[in-house]
């Protein structure tokens, strides 16, 4: 619930914020109106928020898009159009990863953090991939909020929520009412920031080295699995017959 009368404002910054930080809403952060944005807990003009989001995605380590069910499942024309703009956003971010959140159920026995993010433990994906900037788009607001809160508590990831509804206090940058038109503005903001002379993280020496090392590691993993799996997994690959008598 709202905190007291103090004039100090609560900053919504990348964490790790601690064991169980309060929700930003409880600390007095309010949602933006259409035409506004929310940057680190402060209401701003929309273009400033877009720019802050673009800058984070272009300068921080391992920028990643987390498209939710309302993007990845093309259940109607609107969603399909939106999904294609999300891909345009990705195309403007060198070295970007796309890791979907296809649904919200807990995944048994454990998630593959390179393949998926899940609101039951979003930190696993962020930690594993060393993601320091991300965009959530097309996630139902309840699950987005639960996720954003946990990410802020446990990681140093700069979270951006492009929300089709009212926006999210617990994201570092949030824009409300994001239809295809506003998502297009995100594409333009990325182009604009690059034009202003920012070198995207993936193109910096550090970024290049890290991405190359990552590719290397993946290749080795694949090879290891290919050479080691048949001996070890022989019985399990065939599966167990539950009806066996």
């Amino acid at each position, binding site marked *: 619930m709202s905190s007291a009368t103090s004039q100090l404002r609560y900053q919504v910054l990348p964490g790790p914020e601690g064991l169980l930080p309060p929700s930003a809403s409880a600390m007095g952060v309010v949602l933006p109106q259409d035409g506004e944005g929310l940057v680190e807990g402060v209401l701003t003009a929309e273009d400033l928020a877009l720019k802050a989001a673009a800058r984070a995605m272009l300068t921080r380590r391992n920028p990643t898009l987390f*498209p939710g069910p309302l*993007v*990845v*499942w*093309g*259940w*109607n024309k609107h*969603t*399909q159009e939106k*999904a*294609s703009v999300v*891909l345009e956003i990705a195309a403007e971010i060198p070295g970007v990863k*796309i*890791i*979907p959140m*296809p649904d919200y*159920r*807990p*995944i*048994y*026995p454990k998630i*593959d953090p390179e*393949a*998926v993010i899940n609101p039951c433990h979003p930190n696993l994906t962020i930690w594993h991939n060393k993601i320091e900037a991300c965009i959530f788009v097309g996630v139902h607001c309840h699950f987005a909020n639960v996720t954003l809160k946990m990410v802020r508590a446990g990681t140093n990831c700069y979270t951006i929520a492009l929300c089709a509804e009212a926006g999210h206090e617990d994201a570092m940058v949030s824009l409300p009412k994001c239809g295809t038109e506003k998502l297009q503005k995100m594409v333009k903001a990325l182009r604009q920031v690059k034009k202003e002379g920012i070198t995207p993280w993936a193109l910096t020496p550090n970024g290049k080295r890290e991405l190359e090392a990552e590719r290397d590691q993946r290749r080795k993993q694949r090879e290891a699995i290919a050479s080691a799996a048949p001996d070890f997994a022989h019985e399990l690959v065939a599966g167990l017959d*539950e*009806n066996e*008598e």
Partner: protein
Amino acid sequence: MSLETLKISPGFESYMPKEYVDLVERGPYGREVKVSEMGTFKEILEEHPMCAGCAMTLFIRTALIGLPAPEHTVILGTAGCGRLALSQASIPFIYGNYGDTNGVASGLKRGLGIRFPNQQKDVVVMAGDGGLSDIGFSCVMHSWFRKEKFTTVMLDNEVYGNTGGQESGMTNKGVVLKMAPHGKKFEKMDMIGLAKTAGVAYIARLAPTNPTRIANTIRKAVLIAREVGPTYVQAYTSCNIEYAIPTPKVMDDARAVEKDRYGFMEIISDEAKAYLERIEQEKKAKAVAGPKA
């Protein structure tokens, strides 16, 4: 999931985990699948945290194959072992409060009926003996008396398995379990008799010895619930942990219990019978007519 929600947005196919792509390409949606085809399609239930050798898991897995329209089915569960598997299944699942399944299902089914008058939405309760005969008893009985059009499936392992082995109303008389230190003092509750009294349109009792029969029974129960009224399937799904059944002997136990006191039984109302016959005739007529040119 109407089939529209099972389309991956163009451009995202390569980013979706394989499991989801399989679900879209090989899921049992919008078509009839048979138990004999297991292995050729992506099943609704695959990975789950149930105990090794659990008969309940086998029952649930097979029962889900019997659903006539999984893409339009919602399953409800309550506390108990079954929900551990059901929450991992590729079908919308509601996990409510203790013993609330048949209350929630009543409101859900009616609400779906209001929103989708031209699309059958199947609602299936799948919960344990404790959840349905003890804590959920009032909601179960009243949903039957009100003739709510959904299916209730009891996963009857005759014990509170998930809380660590206490007696339930469906435990047999004399069995020593936790909270029954001298053995259970009263008979196993006659839920089938109560279903009869309440006028349930289709009642079935079975053990998980015959997978095809499981799927067929569930299919019948769900279809009859669409048009005629409430349906009830009571399945023996032993708890090999609390009853100390060695894992390789789980099916032996199922067969023994089936022979002794849990034989396959169906009670079907005249109206339900006529309805099933009508569907069967329509299906045959369609098959004879063949696909439209």
